[in-house]
């Protein structure tokens, strides 16, 4: 078992303070249960999400760099972000600061004016919550902690866009056996299967939910989400596991919207992978924030003997 990432800085991001409180709650809960200490970044700021880059991409780089500089100030060499948007932006800032002189120049200028240290590429590694579990305790560590397990619950693992694309900002992926794949990611499958789930073959793992336009072009997002929900059901899944608050909320919201606006009802439930891991380790549904999801999965969990 690798001891990598034994203690990490935690960057929850705005979504985990808002609509995705259940992701925050369940991430902290499994960290505690697995004996993985995390420390929240002091006075962090928004990474720019998917919006600031459309005003100006260099501002997004600056916003992310400020967070990385805080991790460095706190003495950490890795920062863990459960949100795909935050994870993606921090990774992208790292890449741009290493490869693009004008990103470096603008970040330095803004950091000086704002009165904090200028972050330089290579000081802090950004990891996803999936990397955090996979690299520290791994499947074996999960198996050790699992009580009743997920009892063969059929799960479609949905990774979304920002975890894998574009490829160049994730230099550690696609490095052969064992490493994460950008075309067919498997970390979530590995962990949940270790927790006793039965991950189904799901072809839309990295399809887009239309999250960037979830409110500004809702009909498009509803069509994209409906496609994902129906594909998951066709794959035999009872639950879609998510690892991104934008995807998660998008799936929940457009599942309801598809029913209300287009009369298309789907019954697959949506849970964060951290909630599922927590349940497998014997934490109560309340402890992992199942009641805070829009998707009402408690009846299904009870039926499967998991609630």
């Amino acid at each position, binding site marked *: 078992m690798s001891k990598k990432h034994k203690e990490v800085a935690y960057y929850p991001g705005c979504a985990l303070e808002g609509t995705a409180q259940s992701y925050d709650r369940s991430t902290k809960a499994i960290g505690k249960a697995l004996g993985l200490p995390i420390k929240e970044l002091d006075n962090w700021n928004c990474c720019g999400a998917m*919006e*600031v880059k*459309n005003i100006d991409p*260099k501002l997004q780089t600056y916003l992310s760099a400020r967070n990385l500089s805080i991790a460095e100030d706190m003495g950490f060499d890795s920062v863990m972000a459960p949100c795909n948007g935050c994870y993606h932006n921090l990774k992208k800032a790292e890449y741009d600061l290493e490869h693009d002189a004008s990103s470096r120049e603008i970040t330095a200028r803004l950091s000086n004016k704002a009165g904090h240290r200028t972050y330089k590429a290579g000081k802090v590694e950004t990891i996803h919550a999936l990397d955090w579990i996979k690299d520290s305790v791994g499947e074996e560590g999960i198996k050790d902690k699992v009580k009743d397990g997920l009892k063969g619950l059929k799960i479609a693992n949905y990774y979304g866009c920002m975890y894998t694309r*574009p*490829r160049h900002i994730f230099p550690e992926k696609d490095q052969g056996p064992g490493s994460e794949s950008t075309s067919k990611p498997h970390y979530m499958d590995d962990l949940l299967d270790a927790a006793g789930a039965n991950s189904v073959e799901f072809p839309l793992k990295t399809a887009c939910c239309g999250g960037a336009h979830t409110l500004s072009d809702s009909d*498009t997002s509803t069509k994209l989400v409906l496609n994902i929900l129906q594909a998951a059901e066709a794959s035999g899944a009872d639950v879609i596991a998510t690892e991104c608050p934008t995807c998660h909320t998008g799936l929940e919201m457009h599942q309801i*919207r598809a029913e209300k606006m287009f009369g298309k009802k789907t019954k697959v439930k949506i849970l964060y992978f951290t909630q599922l891991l927590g349940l497998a380790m014997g934490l109560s549904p309340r402890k992992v924030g199942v009641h805070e999801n829009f998707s009402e999965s408690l009846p299904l969990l009870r039926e499967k003997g998991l609630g």
Partner: protein
Amino acid sequence: MPIHEKSLIRPENLVEQDELVVDGIDVSGHWSTFITSRAVTDYNEKMQDEIAGLAGGEFIHRCWQCGSCTNACTINALNNDFNPRYWIYLIRMGMEEELLLDKDIIWQCVSCNKCTYACPRDVNPEGVMKATAHWLELKGHTPKSPSMIFDEGFSEQVFKTGKIEDGLVLRQFFAATGQKLTQTWLVSMVVGLIKRMPLTMLTRLGLATFFRPRTSNWGAARAAIDEYVSEKRNENHRLLGLDKMEDGR
């Protein structure tokens, strides 16, 4: 480069005689189809440079028209007219009039980056789509898209306080675009949640709308960002020749 763009053939230029006999041979219907030629003379020679000068458009010149972007595109799968490869072609050729035929859908790119992932030439087509949508708005060809209204409202909040509160983002966007908060699907989402949620959580969520999350000591960062944003805006206006237009008025 002799690329024959089917999309450039306008429906009205496709001519077909229902009944036609030439030299005793019946060529009625599609056998007699021909295309009336048309000459394009009004190339906009500045268009590519202008779009390349906006953020995201920098690498448009690398495109060799393989079509991997369109093939991979999430939105193209829903709407065939959404064709990044074709738009890059039009921009590089300076065919503004043709591009404007699609002006109302270009903003619909969802930034899934499948195109950027597939592109063998590192064009960054996702960035090109954003730069093109931005160009259309700056030039006054299109009104601000719902997406741009959302991005601006969101970013303003980040620049002002360092963080966002999602409830506020939603309320502001609905107000800016004249949508009601009482849409059936939204109401049903919230009602479902409230039914299950413990009272303490609801109180906390309610409080969050009054005590908004913010980053402390953000003033200096805010000033630096505001200064950069206005610098950048002037730069873009100069690039597109909008500053002269404004002076001339």
